[in-house]
């Protein structure tokens, strides 16, 4: 922390305490907090003006974004990139390809049934991304609607909606998932049929139904505090309609937390689907899932076929890691001051 005898030039006795990588010096409470020096004259050393620049300050976030982009492209172009059919009819032709380690023909090898692993991983990646994004979008939509209603209206509407939210929060998600996901013909208390969670649409709906609550709370919190701001009072006094205020003033100012939540939700949903599929309560044939692949390969531990566990898991891991890194970078780029 204190370095003396730096090469070249006069000796510089540095301060105690950290000088962070982002360049903002450590804070001391006095009339000359270094950050105050910066803040009192913000025109002098502001964080980079453009969002992209702020994001680019963190090499990890940039790497994450690049990797994520590659994975998304791989998933989108899976039909083109896959060397073989991920769920082929098991002809003898296919079966004879079984148990081959990684090679030029089968870069990720083949499994006991002769299915090309690279193709399956690509389609599994696709499923993960669709589920992740789908759950995030649904959770955000549901959470924003409920949260904004509660936060804007307040009063009994707020209480009612928050009780409703708390109800969902109380339910242990894993238990519900395991009970419901296994059911091939779920129905809403006999009233109408629900899409089963063994396929992607059903899985997305189920995970979203258990994941919207934090978004609702966040949005509600933001709205509650934004409501008291001066410009909202002014707009109300000027006679602006509720809808106008919500859409022009409140929502745009909440995009930051919404985006951050959405990114995190993608990662969480991907992992949840993988865990469910691993436990056998998730996506089933004909859908291909990375978790399912790992589950199928579980018995190969300690054998020559252990590569069957490695590749799907590796892709899953890298995917979630990239999503998390991007989410972290977004959080800092959107609000540089929320850092700890």
């Amino acid at each position, binding site marked *: 922390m204190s370095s003396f005898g730096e090469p070249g030039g006069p000796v510089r006795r540095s301060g105690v305490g950290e000088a962070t990588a982002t360049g903002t010096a450590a804070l001391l409470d006095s009339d000359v907090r270094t950050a105050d020096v910066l803040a009192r004259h913000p025109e002098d050393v502001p964080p980079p003006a453009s969002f992209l620049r702020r994001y680019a300050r963190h090499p*990890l976030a940039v790497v994450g974004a690049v990797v994520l982009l590659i994975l998304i492209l791989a998933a989108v172009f899976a039909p083109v990139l896959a060397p073989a059919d991920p769920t082929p009819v098991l002809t003898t032709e296919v079966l004879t390809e079984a148990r081959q380690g990684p090679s030029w023909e089968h870069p990720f090898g083949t499994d006991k049934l002769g299915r090309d692993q690279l193709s399956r991983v690509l389609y599994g990646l696709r499923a993960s991304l669709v589920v992740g994004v789908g759950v995030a979008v649904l959770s955000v939509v549901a959470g924003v609607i409920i949260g904004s209603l509660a936060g804007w209206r307040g009063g009994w509407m707020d209480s009612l909606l928050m009780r409703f939210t708390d109800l969902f929060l*109380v339910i242990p998600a894993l238990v*519900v998932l395991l009970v419901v996901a296994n059911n091939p013909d779920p129905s809403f208390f006999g009233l109408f049929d629900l899409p089963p969670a063994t396929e992607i649409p059903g899985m997305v709906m189920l995970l979203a139904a258990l994941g919207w609550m934090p978004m609702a709370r966040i949005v509600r919190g933001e709205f509650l505090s934004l409501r008291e701001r001066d410009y909202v009072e002014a707009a109300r006094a000027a006679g602006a309609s509720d809808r106008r205020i919500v859409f022009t003033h409140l929502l745009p100012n909440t995009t930051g937390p919404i985006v951050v939540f959405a990114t995190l939700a993608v990662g969480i949903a991907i992992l949840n689907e993988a*865990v469910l599929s691993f436990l056998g309560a998730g996506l089933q044939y004909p859908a291909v899932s990375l978790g399912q692949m*790992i589950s199928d390969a579980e018995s190969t531990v300690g054998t020559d076929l252990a590569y069957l566990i490695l590749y799907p898991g590796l892709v899953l*891991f890298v995917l979630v890691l990239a999503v*998390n890194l991007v989410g972290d970078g977004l959080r800092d780029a959107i609000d540089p001051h929320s850092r700890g």
Partner: protein
Amino acid sequence: MWKYVARRALASIPVLLLASVLIFVLVREFGADPARQRCGASRDPVCITRVREQLGLDRTLPVQYVEEMRHFVTGNWGTSLRSDQSVNELIGDALRETAPLAFWSVLLSLGIAVYIGVTSARHPGSVRDHTYTVLAFAGIAMPTFWLGLLVIQAFTYEMQQRLHLSEPFFYSIPNPVGSGALNSFRELALPVLVLSVQLVAGWSRYQRSALIDEMHGDHIRTARAKGLTERRVVWKHGFRGSATSLVTVVAIDAGALIGGVVITERVFSRPGMGTLLLAALRDGDTAVLLPWMLVVGVVVILANLFADVLYAALDPRVRLVTGRAS
């Protein structure tokens, strides 16, 4: 302060009950039918009706629920709908399996997380800090079941091969014939490792930001102004302040572990609370599920309370707020 603690405990009970009702209804409505399971392959409708009557599944839901709760409160939790085993025994055995796993994981993770967190916080932006940050992100993103399988592959099989051992040193499943401390160690080492990766990843980040925040405080500057060594300033003054928030998180996470080791136990075939849950869900066995949920709920509540107590013990300002005379 104890009044405050007691009040909080009581407030959590209705929530727990509500959750238990929801799950009960959910499992009865959507879950597997234990009667059908017991009749096995026969699918004989006569058998099913008879068993349903035997198990009391033909009564209305509220009646069934109340009956279960009565059992729970009196301490005699009845028998499993699936296997007629004593539920008290089932849960007791499961707890005995899960508790050491949770205990050692928490202990190991706490030590490592504190070390990593404090080191990172003292030199933010350094190479070491960045490395730890990447590792923490990796730990958070890691699918537990995959990590478990990799760990087994590496430490059970590969290690045996490379070192030319007659049998694996680290067990991937419990060893029923062995006993004693060494055997426990060999059984627990890998699952504890897997659990710890997750815990350390989260806790170290938390410790890091808690300490960074703490070191910005004026009292740290005063400590330095007194002429204390940097080491003392960090550990006695800084760490102490960060400990309050860390301890809260650790206590809550540790409590949640009792019910949260499902994947790890599944991968390592340990017959603990997680495995019990999976089996009960698979069988629609509410006789086991309800006490399971309530036991886990009580443990979580106790852990949360413990967190509150620890917090108050570490931060004298809190005691005053909760009404104790100064």
